């Protein structure tokens, strides 16, 4: 816009920048509902959309007449660069009469695109104007109606378009002159027209404070619309509404697994929770696992608790597995983590497994059938599965110090060796550490993981806090204690290696926690994942999303420091959230419960509705913003 200006101000001019800044600030404040990417606001006169007798200067804000001005045939107009977006709700601009020129035949108003510019605003169809010489208003007609006072040099004339009731009023020197036009069409442009030599006017689209207190006027309409919403008649259905609201709150709490709050709420409002408490807690546990990055366990738990669920959602399963792979890279997934932790205490904390390996073994048949259910049904995976089992423990051979967890493992897979070789640069880098003390690295990783947890829980303060009691009291005691009291447990674990903490900490993150066995296991898992993808492709056709997901996940391995690489974003714990809610929704859906809480649905619907209002040009959307009602 600025480069079009022929005026004294240029783009680099600090005064201009200041003005531009103030303009942006003011427009943002006045029209918060306008999405300028969709519907830009008028900011200056258009050098293209004007009659030749019009001259522009001062960043296209000043308009002067340069024709002969003999008669009305010499009239000339200019439109603003953009039409007024409906989402403004109430739109306002001002024009200062710098000089009335010879006769002061000036018209200020609005016109639609394509209206003849060799005319004053108001004379033609879809054109509206207020004229200075006689004070008349012209509503798409050559004859005016008495409207307001005349205006001349020094006066500031404002034009306000109310897009809620489609009316327009003018102001003169800050005083409202009353409604001039009703039933205005949409998409009008601010327009001025001049007719005799010497006439000069300056526009203010928000570059400067307005003379008229438009914000006060807006506040009245905001209050009106809020009042309308607040007083929306619900008539006889008052009680009904109350229960609807209570259900919305209750279902929201249940959905997210705020078990105790939901129960308390239900007790207070005497409502019934549809879902069983254990079911809520199960979902909560699974969500916890995903959020903690222990996707493998989450998959196991899901398959155990909701058999058949993932079978019917191969896409979800694939996503979970992909994530599991990423978490392996991260070193947080239990399949790799178990290889890096050797304290019996940490193993004890796994629920329902006396020791790690039996857990694998014992639950394997069951859990893995679930986990690989799509493949299982095809009968393709079993060999894979057994492979994976051997892979799980393989690393432990090389690290005898890792005690019981490794005991059940058999042989290492060659592929993993290959891999570590091919990534020699990586391994050499990490070598000193892993060689010197695997314990340390594993501990440092453990430490980091717990750190991650701390941040997570602070991100999701409320969630975690609420659950704290339950975990310690309840079903998933062990794992919850881990999550909640990670630091504390961790300290316990660390005690013998106190001196090495610092080193471990500063060392930073390592692939699969820097554990070779874990890395191998990861590589192996990657292959399985690849196979799964291929199989899914065969069955359901190629899936670009899956391919991309897989590529992204595998790309992590191509970098020496996956956390600081172009695809490193995947490793961020916050990435788990969408997957977590997808899994939660899927579980709920399988239980014939809404996959989205009705509250969020209503919120989304309202937001969408307001946006839709803007698109269908209902101005009140500007004052009915959903954020205004969210406290």
């Amino acid at each position, binding site marked *: 816009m600025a480069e079009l200006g022929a005026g004294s101000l240029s783009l680099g001019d600090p005064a201009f920048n200041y003005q531009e800044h103030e303009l942006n600030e003011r427009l943002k404040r006045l029209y918060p509902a306008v999405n300028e990417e969709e519907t830009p606001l008028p900011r200056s006169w258009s050098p293209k959309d004007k009659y030749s007798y019009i001259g522009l200067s001062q960043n296209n804000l000043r308009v002067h007449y340069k024709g002969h001005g003999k008669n009305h045939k010499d009239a000339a107009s200019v439109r603003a660069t953009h039409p007024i977006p409906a989402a403004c709700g109430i739109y306002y601009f001002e024009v200062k009469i710098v000089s009335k020129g010879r006769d002061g035949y000036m018209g200020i108003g609005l016109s639609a695109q394509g209206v003849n510019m060799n005319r004053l605003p108001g004379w033609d169809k879809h054109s509206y104007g207020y004229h200075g010489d006689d004070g008349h208003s012209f509503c798409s007609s050559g004859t005016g109606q008495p409207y307001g*006072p005349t205006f001349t040099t020094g006066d500031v004339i404002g034009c306000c378009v109310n897009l809620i009731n489609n009316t327009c009023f003018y102001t003169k020197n*800050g005083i409202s002159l*009353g409604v001039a036009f009703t039933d205005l069409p949409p998409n009008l442009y601010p327009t001025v027209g001049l007719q005799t030599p010497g006439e000069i006017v300056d526009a203010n689209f928000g570059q400067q404070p307005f003379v008229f*207190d438009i914000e006060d006027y807006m*506040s009245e309409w905001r209050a009106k619309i809020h009042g309308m919403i607040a007083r929306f008649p619900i008539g006889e259905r008052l009680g009904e509404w109350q229960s609807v609201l209570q259900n919305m709150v209750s279902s929201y709490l249940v959905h997210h697994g705020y078990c105790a709050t939901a129960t308390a709420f239900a007790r207070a409002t005497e409502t019934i929770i549809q879902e069983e408490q254990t079911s809520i807690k199960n979902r909560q546990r699974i969500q916890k696992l995903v959020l903690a990055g222990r996707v493998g366990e989450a998959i196991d738990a899901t398959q155990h608790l909701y058999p058949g669920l993932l079978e019917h959602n191969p896409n979800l399963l694939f996503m979970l597995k992909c994530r599991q792979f990423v978490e392996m890279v991260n070193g947080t997934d239990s399949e790799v983590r178990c290889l890096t932790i050797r304290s019996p205490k940490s193993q004890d904390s796994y629920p329902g497994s006396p020791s790690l390996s039996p857990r694998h073994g014992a639950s394997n048949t069951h859990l893995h059938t679930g986990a690989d259910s799509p493949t299982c049904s095809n009968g393709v995976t079993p060999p894979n599965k057994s492979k994976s089992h051997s892979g799980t423990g393989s690393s432990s051979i090389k690290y005898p110090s890792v005690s019981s967890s490794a005991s059940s493992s058999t042989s290492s897979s060659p592929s993993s060796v290959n891999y570590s070789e091919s990534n020699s640069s990586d391994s050499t880098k990490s070598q000193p550490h892993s060689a010197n003390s695997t314990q340390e690295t594993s501990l440092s990783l453990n430490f980091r993981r717990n750190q991650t947890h701390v941040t997570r829980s602070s991100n999701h303060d409320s969630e975690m806090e609420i659950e704290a009691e339950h975990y310690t009291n309840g079903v998933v005691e062990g794992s919850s204690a881990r999550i909640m009291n990670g630091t504390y447990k961790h300290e316990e674990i660390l005690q013998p290696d106190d001196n090495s903490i610092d080193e471990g900490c500063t060392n930073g993150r390592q692939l699969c926690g820097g554990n070779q066995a874990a890395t191998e296991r990861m590589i192996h898992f990657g292959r399985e994942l690849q196979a799964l993808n291929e199989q899914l492709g065969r069955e359901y056709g190629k899936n670009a999303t899956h391919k991309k997901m897989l590529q992204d996940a595998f790309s992590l391995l191509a970098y020496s420091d996956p956390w600081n690489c172009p695809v490193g974003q995947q490793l961020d714990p916050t990435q788990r959230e969408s997957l977590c809610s997808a899994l939660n929704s899927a579980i709920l859906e399988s239980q014939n419960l809404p996959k989205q809480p009705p509250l969020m649905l209503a919120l989304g619907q309202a937001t969408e509705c307001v946006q839709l209002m803007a698109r269908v040009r209902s101005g009140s959307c500007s004052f009915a913003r959903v954020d205004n009602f969210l406290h």
Partner: protein
Amino acid sequence: MACLLEAPLRISVLSEVTATSRHYVDRLFDPDPQKVLQGVIDMKNAVIGNNKQKANLIVLGAVPRLLYLLQQSSSSLELRTECAVVLGSLAMGTENNIKSLVDCHIIPALLQGLLCPELIFIEVCLRCLRTVFISPVTPVQLLYTDPTVIPHLMSLLSRSQRTQEYITQIFSHCCKTPEHQTVLFNHGAIQNIAPLLISPSYKVRMQALKCFSVLAYENTQVSMTLVNVLVDGELLSQVFVRMMQRDQPIEMQLTAAKCLTYMCRAGAIRTDDSCVVLKTLPCLVRMCSKEHLLEERVEGAETLAYLMEPDVELQRIASTTDHLVAMLADYFKYPSSVSAITDIKRLDHDLKHAHELRQAAFKLYASLGSNDEDIRKKITETENMMDRIVSGLSESSIKVRLAAVRCLHSLSRSVQQLRTSFHDHAVWRPLMKLLQNAPDEVLVMASSTLCNLLLEFSPSKEPILESGVIELLCSLTQSDSPALRVNGIWALMNMAFQAEQKVKVEIVRSLGTEQLFRLLSDPDSNVLMKTLGLLRNLLSTRPHIDQIMSSHGKQIMQAVTLILEAEHSIEVKEQTLCILANIADGNTAKELIMTNDDMLQKIKYYMGHSNVKLQLAATFCISNLIWNEEDGSQERQDKLREMGFVDILHKLTQASDPNLCDSPLFCVCLSKGINESAWVSLL
């Protein structure tokens, strides 16, 4: 028979009702204080929302007993509090209830109760007092009888939000006169109440605001103090401006606008201050719009009329704001035809406010059109405006009639309107009718309007004359009210201007010389001036002069002498000398001056007066006497020369020499067409 049967039945029902009520009262006399307390609590529950029960209890004498218990120091705090609650509840009933309570001296008892240290008790007492004082039947003076009450109330303002709300509400209802304003002001009302304007409680803010509006009304002292008050570092006027924001409740916007209006009218805020022009005025115009309640529209219009009354610039701005002139036309559309059929309740409401709306609109029109010709034109061009005024003049409500005539008066200042719409709508007719029998305030306005209608160029003048207005005006000159005397004589003066002889004769005959001379010694200088004006108008054109002077010459000359000798303003003397000059213009009347040496000496004195206006008037008089072309001019010139007028004329010419043309004297001569030879011969 039916009647006989019915009567005992009704009595029995009544006795049943009173029996239960009696039981409540009896329990107040129980020797066990605990039972008394329970009795009062039960009574409280029984009277809530039950006007009949309230009336019964009052009739049965519950009030004195409750007051006794309330004042008794032996009563427990709880009992005293409950008593005050019940009394407050009784006060919530009908106006009769309030009267009974006041008759039982509830006010001193409750005021006494405010001395109690317990906040809860103070609050219920204040609550009850508030209810009593906001009733129109309570004499507000009762708040001021004990001089210690106001300071004590001020000190209670800091106790709680409730005390703040009740006390400010009491103040705003009991501040009715300038004396009340002064009492409250002197006890620090402003400093004590100002901080409440930013109270977190809406009710407190609102009542505090109302307090300021009644305190500032027509009170310069309060208004001048208010402009300098800071509330939390912000000027009070800015606080009021914030309260006028368009998202605030209408009541608050309107009351804040009133405060600023009163401050502006008292001269504390300039009329061109942006808080008046850009905030108060637009806010009041908004209040006039259709979307507001009828009461709000009435109040808005009246306040706006008051705000801009003295300021033409504000009138101009208001006349262009939001189509105000057209918006007001809607005030005459109540009750609307729709409401009559569809909704009885609405009809009732509309009817009740219809008069108020009309008078408010007339007031606002009057204020709008009081100075600017264009605005007057706009008003008279509003749909059916003149018809509305005409019918307003004969409405039953005095308020409406007064406002309508005010509006008419305001519009009658326009020459154009007098010539056109006033004549077309024969406004003189209802106006004359109004003058026959009306209270003084209406008469003042109506007669003032009549003055304008009797101006020479007004086409209504003729029909008015024919309707026997002269008698009426002459009777007005005998009124006790100076304003009416002025208007009466003023109208006669206007009527006599360039009038036919028979009109003049009729005026003199009807007024009577006695009354005329009484008016010449009227203590009101305005009356004197207009009477002189009348004389001057009567004494114009030679035949008229001679005729009137031949019949009343002696008295007139006497009156002129008296005025010239007495202490009067320059204007009065000038007017008198002009009368003399007119007399000198007569053919025979001249002689009355020429034969009166004393008078000639006076003229000579005024020719040498330091005031140019008087010099001119006197010289004017002489020039008429020495007029060359008339009979006996030579003799008159000789006589005047003998009396030494030549010297004084010389002095005058010398004073204005060397440029005689520039001298005012010369100008007068030229304008009178005096040929210089007359002067030359004299000199």
